[in-house]
């Protein structure tokens, strides 16, 4: 035991009191806290009975660098991730220039390493097509070698089924899967408002949920036909859930994600032209919320992501139809979704799968299951702590969240990465 560098005592793992032993940045043991093992030379940290959680993984963020550093940069985004409980962060390619070549990927990785040498770790998602134009494939092999862990045209859905099929095939040759932002591009793309009674009453340009489900269906059929996995981004509605359930029953290699805001808010939140609630895909109905929660609990939806999409205040303080879509999510995701566990809307198992083993399994990222040898990335979480979402309390530059002004429950009290206390 002489290699043990850190002992975190008296943490709550589920209902059990435990000690966490860390050696060489990795988990050495998760031991019942009943007998106090003396470990010579190790740093001791008293968790004071706080909840122990593995660090979270977020497979869908927009960190805006290079090009839009006024919205967010890699340093600020990873800072929000660190304090929000994330050790692994994947970032989308819609930067300027687009991440469609190794130079951009390497720049992103270098920025992450220099700002946060001890983590959180950044995993770029490469552009699927050059310039995200859905015309020519991006150099996927080059991007994969440079460090891209997946490919996506996120935000700019691919209209051509043929192009998308070839992209899936070529990406899988690199051992990478495609993440698809499912949105039929002819049906009011990016409207940021759900089509239904609310949009009808308020006279808002809106998108029906079938615009998402139609592309989900296409992708499922392609995955089933090609036997190549596809990952479906930010699923927002019951129709898509039903299709994914069907796909999984068939054994089609499909995985899917949803975001905290789709589990907590409905279209009514945007009814008053509140641009903080303008997001793509849009907030849907109560029925969709229930379907998504059930799907997350059952595993039909595999994982949670933030779709962290920071924007500057002046960009959101405009007419609803002119505002950019997106919600800043890294700071609030853990509190919001842990609260669903507390309220028994989401099982603890589903929560842990959706934020840790699920995403790491899909994208091949390091994960802490508290087994010997796992990376010692974990949180001490205070589920009783209350905090108010204010521009000041958010670490992200993006203050664009519909939860601004809310009092949330649960906060990261300490965050260890590789056994080193970072928060």
């Amino acid at each position, binding site marked *: 035991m002489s290699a043990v560098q850190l002992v975190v005592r008296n943490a709550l793992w589920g209902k059990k009191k435990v000690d966490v032993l860390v050696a060489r940045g990795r988990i050495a043991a998760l031991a019942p806290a009943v007998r106090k093992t003396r470990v010579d030379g190790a740093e001791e940290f008293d968790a004071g009975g706080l909840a122990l959680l593995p660090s979270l993984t977020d497979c869908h963020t927009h960190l805006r660098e290079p090009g839009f550093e006024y919205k967010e940069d890699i340093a600020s985004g990873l800072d929000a991730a660190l304090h929000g409980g994330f050790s692994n962060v994947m970032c989308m390619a819609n930067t300027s220039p687009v991440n469609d070549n190794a130079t951009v990927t390497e720049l992103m990785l270098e920025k992450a390493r220099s700002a946060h040498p001890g983590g959180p770790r950044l995993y770029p998602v490469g552009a699927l097509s050059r310039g995200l134009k859905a015309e020519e494939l991006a150099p996927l092999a080059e991007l994969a070698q440079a460090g891209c862990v997946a490919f996506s045209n996120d935000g700019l859905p691919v209209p051509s089924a043929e192009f998308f099929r070839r992209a899936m095939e070529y990406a899988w040759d690199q051992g990478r899967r495609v993440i698809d932002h499912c949105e039929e591009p002819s049906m009011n793309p990016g409207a940021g408002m759900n*089509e*239904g*009674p*609310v*949009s*009808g*009453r*308020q*006279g*808002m*340009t*809106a998108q*029906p949920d079938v615009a998402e489900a139609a592309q989900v269906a296409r992708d499922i059929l392609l995955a089933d036909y090609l036997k190549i996995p596809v990952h479906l981004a930010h699923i927002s509605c019951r129709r898509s859930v039903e299709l994914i359930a069907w796909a999984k029953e068939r054994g089609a290699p499909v995985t899917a994600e949803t975001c905290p805001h789709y589990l907590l808010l409905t279209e009514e939140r945007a009814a*008053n*032209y509140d641009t903080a609630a303008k997001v793509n895909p849009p907030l849907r109905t109560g029925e969709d919320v229930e379907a998504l929660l059930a799907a997350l609990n059952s595993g039909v939806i595999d994982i949670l992501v933030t779709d962290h999409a920071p924007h500057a205040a*002046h960009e959101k*303080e*405009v*007419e*609803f*139809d*002119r505002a950019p879509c997106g919600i800043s999510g890294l700071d609030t995701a853990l509190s919001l979704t842990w609260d669903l566990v507390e309220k028994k809307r989401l099982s603890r198992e589903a929560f842990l799968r959706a934020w840790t083993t699920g995403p790491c399994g899909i994208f091949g990222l390091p994960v802490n299951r508290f087994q010997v040898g796992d990376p010692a990335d974990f949180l001490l979480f205070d589920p009783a702590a209350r905090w108010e979402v204010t521009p000041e309390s958010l670490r992200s530059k993006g203050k664009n969240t519909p939860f601004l002004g809310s009092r949330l429950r649960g906060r990261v009290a300490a965050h260890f990465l590789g056994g080193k206390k970072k928060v």
Partner: protein
Amino acid sequence: MQWRHKDLLDVSQLSLDEARFVLDTARYFQEINSRPVKKVPTLKGRSVVLFFAEPSTRTKTSFDVAGKRLSADTFALAKSGSSLSKGESLKDTALTLQAMNPDAIVIRHSSSGAAQFLAERLECSVINAGDGRHAHPTQALLDAFTLAQRWGDLKGRTVLILGDIAHSRVARSNVLLLNLLGARVRLCGPRTLLPPGVEDWEAEVFSDLPKAVRGADAVMCLRLQLERMQAGLLPDLREYARTYGLGERHMALAASEALVLHPGPINRGVEIASALADSGRSVILDQVAAGVAVRMALLFLYLTRKPAE
């Protein structure tokens, strides 16, 4: 009645008593408009900005005339030639206008919710002169005023709103106000021009014009925008005119004294037969006159309001 509202964003803000009070006040100003000297000093020294970020002739002129007849100073700001066309944000334009300390801003804007956007940020009254597809409360009030002039009371009357309901702020505000005043509302248009969720509106919905018009006491035609064809919502003008263009043959199915309204500008021979627009049933020009009276009433009420303590 002491007026307390700061802004007029939609008729949904008004109680039945308040809506009636606006119409009663408008009746008083309508009388002034028939005098040889039409100007009264009521709002002397007060200023009203007409901020029209979307093309409009009649509504803007109507507010301009209304303000001037009350001796208010009116200032027009159009989108072309304004800094909005130079990329200034709505917020900055609004704050700039506010700094000139007007008593009210009348706004017309292509975005739904734009009037509310201003109202949340400005201390002066904001009068919505049409925001996107959302609301056009002054139009609904002048339509109700026009009908009330002929009928006295709207209670129990049946009003058919015909055409492009989905994209119409006039239709949305009229459905709310007509119901408030006790009228029965019918809506008619092709499915492609009906809004999502219309089945839950306080209105009977038709896609067949002869059925919709049967027994109606008034038909309100809506302007058809040419963009609807480009968007694939309709085949062409000719087919629309054949199916949904209001003609004498339809009015023969309506109540005997049924009236025809149109918010203008008219596409003759498209949404309404040219002869019908000029016929004795048509109250289209009465609507224009009513517009001035109603807007005088609104400017008067909002500029002399007493905010709640």
